[in-house]
């Protein structure tokens, strides 16, 4: 650290980029992903139509790589690097923030591993043409089901805590009161994403479409 340096250190910029990519585009993509997949809660046909719509967006490869895969790889990769540089000490200091610090890292690595597997099975093996029937079939495998649930919970937790961290670390929630409010907001997001994610999984597993009444009667 030097007082005469005027340009921020590379580690500063990478940290900021890591923090920012967690929210945008990675967090935003998770929201979009849950939104699109919740089409299954209406009907299998709506899911297939939504899926087809996404499969045929213009510049698809650029959007996928630039907006999803690369930011995700950077966020996960640099996140592991950050993890390795920290030394958790919850046994000596078992405070809530310290527990969140530790769990955020474990949930991050679980989510990262899950997303890798999820991309392989639902994106790679389907050649990017996921259909309701494929996913519903995968969900019949109890191991797949468990891993889906774990992945959804880990990702939702990581996003919720991440939002809290983001608001604190960018100084958008600076006072103690604001940081507590940011914490409640992050918890709300985490719980909301978990619930919606689990509902989508149940929809595929049990061919359950609670919003099918929205469809016009034939």
């Amino acid at each position, binding site marked *: 650290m030097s007082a*005469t340096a005027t*340009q921020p250190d590379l580690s500063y910029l990478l940290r*900021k980029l890591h923090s920012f990519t967690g929210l945008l585009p990675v967090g935003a993509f998770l929201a979009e992903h849950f939104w699109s997949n919740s089409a299954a809660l209406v009907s299998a046909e709506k899911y297939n139509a939504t899926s087809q719509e996404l499969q045929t967006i213009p510049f698809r490869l650029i959007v996928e790589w630039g907006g999803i895969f690369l930011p995700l790889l950077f966020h996960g990769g640099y996140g592991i690097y950050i993890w390795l540089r920290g030394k958790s000490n919850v046994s000596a*200091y078992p405070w809530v923030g310290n527990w969140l610090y530790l769990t955020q890292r474990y949930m991050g690595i679980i989510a990262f591993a899950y997303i890798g597997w999820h991309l392989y099975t639902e994106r790679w093996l389907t050649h990017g043409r996921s259909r309701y029937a494929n996913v519903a079939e995968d969900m019949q495998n109890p191991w797949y089901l468990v891993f889906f649930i774990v992945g959804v919970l880990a990702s939702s937790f990581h996003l919720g805590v991440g939002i809290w961290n983001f608001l604190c670390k960018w100084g958008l929630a600076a006072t103690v009161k604001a940081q507590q409010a940011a914490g409640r907001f992050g918890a709300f997001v985490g719980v909301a994403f978990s619930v919606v994610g689990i509902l989508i999984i149940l929809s595929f597993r049990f061919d359950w479409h609670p919003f099918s009444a929205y469809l016009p009667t034939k």
Partner: protein
Amino acid sequence: MSETKQVIVKVKRQAGPKEVARWEEFSLRWRPSMNVIICLRDIAENPVTRDGKKTTPISYDSNCLEEICGSCAMLINGRARMACSALVDQLEQPIRIEAMSKFPLVRDLIVDRQFMFESLKRVKAWIPIDGTYNLGEGPRVSPEIQGKGYPLSNCITCGNCLEVCPQVNENNQFVGAAIISQVRLFNMHPTGAMNKSERLSALMGPGGIQECANAQNCVHACPKGIPLTESIAEVNRDAWKQALLGWLVG
């Protein structure tokens, strides 16, 4: 017929940075309002271990005995705190006393906190007053700034916030919460604000504010109740504005 009450204390001894560490156990006569520094003094008066072996007095730092000098921070029952305000009656026995782990050890309980003082110099944690000539009166400080600054000025550079921080370790050179909070203090002062961008630049160097990962242990461990997490958030906001928007809007 009450037998005199005893206090059992275990101290981690180490003759020098490269010597082997060992634990010594002492049995001391209990007295009302006893604190950990009194225990260490009692041992110095009669340096005999619990099993009757003669030993040397324990080396430790302490001065004010009222939590304002910052010199007696150590690990007491595994937690970083000031020894002078650690009351024996509130501690589980045997009381384990050891040196802080994040600073180079000098001897027994003494550590070298030079890293913190060097960090304070790097971020120019002072307000420049007269140079080679009289600079005249500075701007007035509003009561609001005074009110915000006073709690920050209570920092005693004890090092507890660094000791409890999971991000402060041998893998990086993170300056820690105390130094970031001092940057906030001097940046909010109207005269100190003249060096604001220099301080922020220094904090965006290696080991700077970016190493904070929001575990928020610092604010719990601070013996002075300084709003460290608020300081970090505010300085963070100033820093990214300068770094990421500075080249756009000046």
